[in-house]
């Protein structure tokens, strides 16, 4: 946890942070802290309050309550100074459609007060980084989704930010484009850039985050490293069983006691056990015959399911 970390190391701290829109409470009193150089994630389903939290961190949405400090500064009074040190990759790309790829970088750098020669110099490096050098003179519109996303990330880096905010960075991308993007984010992390990202993909959270919080209904329901979360809230392995039935609940009783606990999903049963193969053997010895059985390691999805009773992507 973060409470015992010296303050000088903290890039960001939130206490009782709240965001309301009329009667609706989007973020309901959350506490978290992010250290310099860390990759920190908000994991949760749509509507959990991740984006609202990110907008408050980005100093474009005033908190309704609680305390928020970014670089030790208060976003409600020091917005411009905070934003000058942030890079933001929003959920929708918001690239400037009227400009070319390289102009997007130049113009964005100018918004940060960089000189014309500075932005030109950096744009060359960033286009290389985003693998877009050949498309530098093209308009933005014909680029693929993955290219636009990479350009958005390159654009967010033009000011050499200390902290990069990524709101669902790979949502809507094909697997190849996602892996390329993850690789770029790893490189940034190695360079010492602090990353804060939201995602509803557990594999993304596992790949990228040193530490994460699980959000649901505007609250934080768990916090830790991916490994810690799995250890605390799930078993080492999971046995997935499919039966020839419309209602898997009727089989839940039959496998009761095989593992530590059983979750019923619409299309399968999840048996949580330390040793998945042993659990499979136990099921077989009880004379229960599933259509298929599969042993896998626990993931953050299981953690989330256990904590909220729901799957992440719904």
């Amino acid at each position, binding site marked *: 946890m973060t409470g015992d970390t010296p303050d000088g190391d903290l890039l960001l701290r939130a206490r009782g942070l*709240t965001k*309301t*829109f009329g*009667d*609706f*409470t989007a973020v*309901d*009193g959350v506490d978290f802290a992010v250290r310099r150089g860390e990759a920190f994630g908000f994991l949760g389903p749509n509507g959990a309050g991740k984006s609202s939290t990110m907008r408050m961190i*980005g100093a*474009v*949405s*005033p908190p*309704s*309550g609680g305390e928020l400090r970014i670089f030790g500064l208060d976003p*409600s*009074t020091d*917005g*411009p*100074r905070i*934003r*000058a040190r*942030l890079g*933001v990759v*929003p959920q*929708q790309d*918001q*690239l*400037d*459609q*009227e*400009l070319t790829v390289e*102009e997007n970088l*130049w*113009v*964005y750098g*100018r*918004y*940060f*007060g960089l000189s014309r020669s500075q932005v030109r110099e950096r744009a060359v490096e960033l286009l290389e980084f985003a693998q877009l050098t050949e498309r530098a003179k093209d308009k933005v519109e014909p680029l693929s989704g993955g290219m636009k996303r990479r350009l958005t990330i390159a654009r967010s880096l033009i*000011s050499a930010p200390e902290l990069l905010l990524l709101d669902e960075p790979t949502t809507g991308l094909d697997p190849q484009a996602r892996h390329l993007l993850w690789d770029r984010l790893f490189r940034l992390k190695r360079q010492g850039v602090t990353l804060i990202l939201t995602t509803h993909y557990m594999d993304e959270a596992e790949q990228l985050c040193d530490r994460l919080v699980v959000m649901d209904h505007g609250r934080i329901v768990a916090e830790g490293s991916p490994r810690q979360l799995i250890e605390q809230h799930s078993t080492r392995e999971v046995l997935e069983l499919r039966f020839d039935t419309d209602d898997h609940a009727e089989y839940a009783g039959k496998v009761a006691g095989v593992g530590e606990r059983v979750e019923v999903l619409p299309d399968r049963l999840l048996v949580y056990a330390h040793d998945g193969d042993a659990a499979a053997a136990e099921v077989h010895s009880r004379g229960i015959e599933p259509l298929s059985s599969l042993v896998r390691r626990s993931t953050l999805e299981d953690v989330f399911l256990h904590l909220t009773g729901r799957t992440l992507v719904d």
Partner: protein
Amino acid sequence: MSSTTAPLAVRVSRLLPVPAGAGMARMLVERNVRSYKHGWIALVTGFLEPVLYLFSLGVGIGALVQTVTTDSGEVPYAAFVAPALLATSAMNGAVYDSTFNVFWKLRYAKLYDAVLATPLGPRDVAVGEIAWSLIRGALYSALFLLVATLAGTVTSWWALLALPAAVFIGFAFAAVGMFVTTYMKSWADFEWVNLAIQPMFLFSATFFPLETYPPTVQWLVQLTPLYHGVALERALMLGQVDAGIWWHVGYLVALGVVGLIGTGRRLEKLLLT
């Protein structure tokens, strides 16, 4: 729902009319200049309309009407109409950008969302866009002034001040145009812009003197911003300058300032929630 109270300093700053900014509005102007390098044809077409009116009405009807009686004597009809069309040029240039283009950027391109993630604040966006719009208006006015001079309708050295005067007209229309645009929900709402611009163009003492109207209508006409733009430009280009022009300048500046602050507040409300 948790009830929350912002710190006193924040609540006080929210009462102040000036929206937050980082003093970097010029960066947005620079962005617009760069954008127009790709689509300069859009700039040219907007300038043509007043020029066409100058030659069709000013010169054409001028052949029938000959002269118009003003406060200080008879002037040729073309010379009477030219200042009004110069004011219209400033209005057109300012309104094109501050309405259609701003609406596109605000609702579809999400340009301001991206800009507000940088140090720039809503005031910078308002100042930058309104400045760009008034520059476009001033550019149209400059071109028009050149055409009008070549056509021989400019007779006074006071006409040199017609261009700075056009900046005030551009400012007023750009600021009010952008403010109104922040309330628009769909492209259909732009019919209201046309509904405001067209009658103003026709009846702001543009093609005939204010005295032509009955007194009540005169009073109504004098409320519209284009009337003040036309009266200001006419005084300068005909060399009939008196202290009354400050009243017109004051009206235009006041309208511009109100529109500018209103725009910043609206952007804050729309984008920084």
